[in-house]
C-alpha cells in the first residue's frame, strides 16, 4: 500500500511535466499548422511585429493588399486582422473572397458564408467547446455575433468574422495585422521576399516565409519564458519525487529493520542492503513514470473533451525517457539517505527490533 501510494505521488508530477510539455508542444504545433493551413507562402507584418502574441497590432495599411497582389509571382493576397481573446485564442477578421482565393475555400460542416456584418464562422473545435450551432448567438469581444457557419478547423483562427466589423470594433479602420501572399510556385519564395524588401516603403516591414514564421513562433514562445516555466515545473517534480521516495524508503527501512538484521546475519553486506533499497526506489520511480505517462493520456483526453479549441496537447514521446531519467535521479537521491541508514544498521540491534 505504501509503495502504491508512493508510485501515485511520483506519477502526479510526471503527469504535470508531460502535460505541460504536451500543451506547449501541442499549442505551438497547432499555431504552426494553422499558419501553414492558410495556404500562403509569405506573410507580411508591420515593423517590430513578432511572430506571435502581438498579432493584434493592426499596423499594416489595407491598401497594401491590392498592391502586393500585383507583385510578380503573387497569385493571391489576403489581409487579416487578429484580435486575441481568452487565453491565446484569436479572432480573425477576414474578407471571405480573399480567404477563398488563398485557401481554395473553407470546408463548411454546417451553414455558410457571412451574410451580415455581425456574422461569425466558427471551426468545429470552438463550436464544440462552446456548444454552439449555426443560428445561435455568441458573445465575443463584448459583441453579440450570429453564427452563420461552422467549418473544418485548421485554417487561420478558430473564429472568423468580417474584416470591416473587426476593424471598427478595434477602431483600426483600413488597418491590418498581417497580409498573407500565395505564390505561383513556392520555390520562388526567397526571390519574392528579396524583391519585396527592395520595394520602396516595404524595407522596414517584416516579410517572412511561412517556414521562417513557424520557426519564429517556436523561438518566440521559448523566449517568452515557457522553457523556463517547464524547467521550474520539472524542478518541482524532481523535488516532490525526491521527498516522496525519501519518506517512503525511510518508512520502509523502519518497517523492515528486523528484516535488514536477518539479511545481515545471513551475510548481506552494506552494499547489498543499499542495493535492495535503491532497487525498490527505482521500481517505484519506473512505476511512477509509467503511471504518469498513462495519466498524461487521460489529461489529453480531458483537455480535448473540455477545451478542444483553447488548448491542444500532444503526447511528446521524446520526453518519456527524459522524465524517466528525472524520476530515477529523484528516486536515487531520495533513497540514498534511508539506504545508507539501513546499510549502517547494527545487525544485533536490528534483529532485536520489534
Amino acid at each position, binding site marked *: 500500500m505504501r509503495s502504491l501510494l508512493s508510485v501515485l505521488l511520483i506519477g502526479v508530477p510526471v503527469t504535470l511535466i508531460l502535460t505541460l510539455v504536451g500543451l506547449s508542444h501541442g499549442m505551438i504545433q497547432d499555431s504552426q499548422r494553422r499558419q501553414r493551413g492558410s495556404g500562403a507562402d509569405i506573410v507580411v507584418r508591420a515593423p517590430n511585429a513578432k511572430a506571435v502574441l502581438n498579432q493584434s497590432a493592426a499596423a499594416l495599411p489595407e491598401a497594401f493588399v491590392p498592391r502586393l497582389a500585383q507583385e510578380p509571382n503573387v497569385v493571391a493576397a489576403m489581409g487579416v486582422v487578429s484580435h486575441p481573446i481568452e487565453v491565446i485564442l484569436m479572432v480573425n477578421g477576414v474578407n471571405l473572397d480573399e480567404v477563398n482565393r488563398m485557401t481554395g475555400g473553407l470546408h463548411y460542416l454546417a451553414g455558410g458564408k457571412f451574410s451580415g456584418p455581425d456574422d461569425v464562422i466558427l471551426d468545429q473545435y470552438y463550436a464544440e467547446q462552446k456548444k454552439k450551432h449555426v443560428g445561435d448567438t455568441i458573445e465575443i469581444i463584448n459583441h453579440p455575433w450570429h453564427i452563420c457557419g461552422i467549418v473544418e478547423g485548421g485554417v487561420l483562427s478558430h473564429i472568423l468574422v468580417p474584416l470591416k466589423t473587426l476593424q471598427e470594433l478595434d477602431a483600426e479602420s483600413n488597418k491590418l495585422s498581417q497580409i498573407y501572399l500565395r505564390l505561383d510556385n513556392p520555390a520562388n519564395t526567397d526571390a519574392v521576399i528579396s524583391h519585396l524588401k527592395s520595394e520602396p516603403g516595404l524595407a522596414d516591414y517584416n516579410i517572412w516565409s511561412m517556414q521562417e514564421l513557424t520557426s519564429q513562433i517556436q523561438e518566440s514562445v521559448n523566449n517568452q519564458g515557457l522553457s523556463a516555466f517547464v524547467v521550474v515545473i520539472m524542478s518541482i517534480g524532481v523535488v516532490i519525487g525526491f521527498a516522496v521516495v525519501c519518506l517512503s524508503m525511510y518508512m520502509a527501512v523502519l518497517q523492515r529493520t*528486523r*528484516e535488514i*538484521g*536477518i*539479511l*545481515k*546475519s*545471513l*551475510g*548481506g*553486506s*552494506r552494499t*547489498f542492503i543499499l542495493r535492495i533499497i535503491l532497487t525498490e526506489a527505482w521500481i517505484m520511480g519506473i512505476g511512477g513514470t509509467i503511471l504518469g505517462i498513462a495519466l498524461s493520456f487521460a489529461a489529453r483526453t480531458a483537455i480535448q473533451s473540455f477545451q478542444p479549441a483553447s488548448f491542444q496537447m500532444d503526447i511528446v514521446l521524446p520526453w518519456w525517457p527524459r522524465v524517466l531519467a528525472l524520476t530515477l535521479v529523484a528516486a536515487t537521491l531520495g533513497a540514498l539517505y534511508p539506504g545508507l541508514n539501513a546499510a549502517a544498521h*547494527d*545487525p*544485533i540491534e536490528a*534483529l532485536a527490533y520489534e
Partner: protein
Amino acid sequence: MNNGEIISVRGLHKTYRVGSVDVPALRGVDLSVAAGEFLSIVGPSGSGKSTLFHIIGGLTPPTAGEVVVAGENLAALTDGGRTRMRRRTVGFVFQKFNLLPNLTARDNIAVAHYLAGTNPKPDAKFEEILGLLGIAARLDHKPNALSGGEQQRVAIARAIVKHPAILLADEPTGNLDTENSRAVLEILRDLNTRTGQTILMITHNPEAAGYGHRTVHMRDGKLVA
C-alpha cells in the same frame, strides 16, 4: 566427533557502552570447541550467552581477547570481513525463527544460498537434509502459513544450506511447544550425527541441553564449572 579445534576463545571480554556507562557483558571467557561437537551453553538471562554467540557468529567484534573461528581471528576482522564470515562460515538459528515474511520457505533458503554465493543447484547432501527436516511439501508456503515447528525447520534449512562450518542456535526451542521442541532438537542431533555439523546451542532448558555432547554454564559473563 572430529578432534580438530574449530572454535578457540581466549580471555574474551566484551563491554557495551550504554549512554555514558560501560556495561561489561563478557569478563574473560575461555572456550574451546572441537569440529563436529554439539555444545550446549546454559545460563540465566544476562549471563552473556547471547553476547558470546554474537561474537562467535561475527555479528559484533570483541572488546578484548582472542576468538578464532574456523581459522579466522575475529578480533582482526573488519566489518566487511565479519560479513564474509557470516556468509560462509556460520549459520544462525534464532528463537524467533527470523524468516523473511514476504518470501516463501524456498525463497528464504534461496536468499542464504545467493548471499553465500554457493552453487544454487540442489545438492544431494542438502536434499537429504530437507528430507530429514520434513518440510519438502511446505517449501512454497510463506512463514505465516507455517507452524512454529515448521518455521524453525525452515530456519535450520536456511542456516545449513551453505554448509557452514558452525551452526549457532540461540534458544531454538524457546518459541515451540514440547512436541515441536523435541522434534527440532532431534533434527539438530541427527544433523550433527549424520553430517558432523558443529553446533553451538544456547538454551535455558537443561533437558534441551542434554541433546549436546557437552554442556557449559555461564554466569555473570564468565564460564563456570
